[in-house]
């Protein structure tokens, strides 16, 4: 297993796209989060106190874009091997296919968790700098963002976990589909199209149902720190839904890897 881990780490580390994608996870998350935070201020509300803005979620909204880099990183980690035929070498070196998949999952997830942590810390720092200028001050009922606050910590940590699970979803589907374009389209459809379609459906009950099962809307419930009763699904239950999606994808990938010729 150690050898397999070392091999996977070398493969990931030595591809230049991986470094770019890690940078993209951090950069896109912090940039979009800051841009969205900067566009919201209390003057758009009836009064600053009645704004009820979930500032933590707003600041962390950059993962909407940042997760795309995670998906690409995870999908390419496996489909690139099928593209280039490298997979045959990999499987010749480590014939136990389950071990290969586990090692890949470990390396990719660790990379994503590390870059996700950086992205979340960067977003929170940017939020701390931007929010008071937009009226979200202590006096208006918005204390400065701090991870010592339990819901904020849950949202921040949960966002990192969310990115890790999205990586597993991508890796699992990539292993099952073995094709970059197909796997990417599959994951992005699951993540993005479900919430857009949910927003267009005319019935609130169906909207809530869709938002409960769609991996992105359910998983990102973990970011909510205010008005939890308004969420279609609780924070940890939502992350659980995403975990179920990721687990299913990984299982599917493992089965296909075992059963099909490489």
């Amino acid at each position, binding site marked *: 297993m150690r050898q397999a881990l070392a091999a996977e780490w070398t493969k990931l580390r030595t591809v230049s796209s991986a470094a770019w994608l890690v940078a993209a996870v951090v950069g896109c998350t912090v940039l979009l989060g800051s841009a969205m935070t900067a566009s919201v201020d209390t003057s758009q509300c009836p009064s600053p106190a009645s704004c009820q803005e979930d500032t933590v979620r707003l600041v962390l909204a950059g993962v909407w874009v940042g997760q795309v880099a995670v998906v690409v990183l995870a999908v390419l980690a496996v489909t690139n091997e099928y593209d280039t035929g490298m997979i045959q070498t990999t499987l010749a070196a480590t014939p136990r296919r389950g071990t290969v998949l586990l090692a890949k999952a470990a390396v990719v997830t660790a990379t994503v968790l590390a870059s996700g942590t950086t992205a979340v810390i960067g977003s929170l720092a940017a939020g701390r700098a931007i929010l008071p200028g937009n009226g979200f001050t202590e006096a208006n009922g918005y204390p400065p963002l701090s991870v010592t606050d339990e819901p904020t910590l849950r949202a921040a940590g949960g966002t990192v976990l969310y990115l890790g699970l999205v990586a597993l979803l991508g890796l699992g589907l990539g292993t099952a589909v073995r094709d970059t374009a197909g796997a990417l389209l599959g994951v992005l459809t699951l993540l993005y199209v479900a919430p857009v379609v949910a927003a*267009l459906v005319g019935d609130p009950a169906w909207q809530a149902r869709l938002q409960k099962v769609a991996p992105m809307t359910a998983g990102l419930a973990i970011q909510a720190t205010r008005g939890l009763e308004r969420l279609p699904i609780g924070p940890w239950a939502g992350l659980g839904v995403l975990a179920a999606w990721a687990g299913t994808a990984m299982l599917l990938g493992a089965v296909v890897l075992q059963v099909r010729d490489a």
Partner: protein
Amino acid sequence: MGRLLLAEWTKLASVPRWVAAMMAAVVLTVLVGLLGAASSTSDANRYWDFAVGPDGRSVRDDFHLAHRPLAGDGSVTARVASQAGLVGELQDWARAGVILKEGLEPGSRYAAMMVTPGHGVRFQANFADEVAGGGTGARWLRLTRAGSVIDGYESVDGTAWRRVGTVDLAGLPSTVQIGLFVASPDAVQVTRQFGSVGIGGHPTAATATFDNVRVEPAGSPPGASWTDRDVGRPALEGDATERAGGFTVSGSGDLAVVPPEEDVVRLSLTGVLVGLMAVVGLGVLSITSEYKRGMIRTTFAASPRRGRVLAAKALVLGGATFVAGLVACLAAFLLAQPTLRANGYGPPAFPRASLTDGPVLRAVIGSAAVLALVAVLGLAAGAILRRSAGAITAVILLLVLPQLVAAALPVSAGRWLQRLTPSAGFAIQQTVERGLCLPEDGCFPEGPWLGFGVLCAYVAVALAVAFWLLRRRDA
């Protein structure tokens, strides 16, 4: 060029996976549209209590009216001396002016000349045909009737008159009601709460003073006298008092078409968002797979003029996607409408949508065109980036993400996102003009064509860059 097109068509049609992807796009578009229709319900008809306008649309025909009958041809003249808020602030669309109405029941035909604080002088007939006149401020207004033709005039001083609008109300009875009316629509506030847009509204009333009121001929019909009443059901009761040569009228309400709460055409075309994913993949792969397999060198050896190759690819791909998209959108629309009607999206709250209506046809054909454009955008992105992963991700991010982000942003920022990103193209699916256009409802404020133009511009720029890079770089 003919042989090039044939070659590209052969490449597209002879790969079973691509044919399957195209079929998948069609099936997904129809299926998601049907699912969306099946999972949407509306009880708007249960609470529907609007008047029906002359053309069958739901209308608000609520205002306070000081009126008297007029037999045969004639005219009514009045000067709107002032307009002020009575309950709440004076609204931009508060209306005060002269009106000639077929009868007093709501929804009946009329022509009116009015002053609005925010939008100047207007001529309006039958809830549509609104023509803008001069600026704001005190105005003389006049309506004349000659047979069934009503003309609306405005004047600054009461001597030099300018015609603003005219309408032919065929079959108008010989005796009609003429009068002075005041309406003031609900004040709508858009505020942000709980991280999204909240809409609040409350009824308002306005008051206007009219002087120099003159009806000609004064004695037609004999014994005609002024009375006042609320027409329709304005939210607040109005009032009118007569002074020497003038009136003070106060009232609430509006004269306007009520747009349906939901765009049933767009609802049935929701599946395009999903079919789009397969189309993006097809567009990108149609060129990146040639790079991957080295086929591109054969292609360029066979036809060294690379610009033509790109053009042929774009034509074949765009054409094939358009045809497939048209089949999908037609099927989605036709299959979803009965389900939607059964789920409460029927007349009168939701007028029947038919393919013979201009906006419906535009939405259906436009959706197919959006699919074709997206395929070509994918092709261009693939030619620029040469990598499937990067190109697919970029195109999908540009098309889908803005719609998500726009809903979470404040209204003004969200609208800019809807204007400036390629996702603006989805505006072509819109068939209903809403009173309050919010990004979170997926409503595009600029109407269907501007957004479509934005998408076209993106495709054109991407193709130009792809063309330039194809010629400059080694294959």
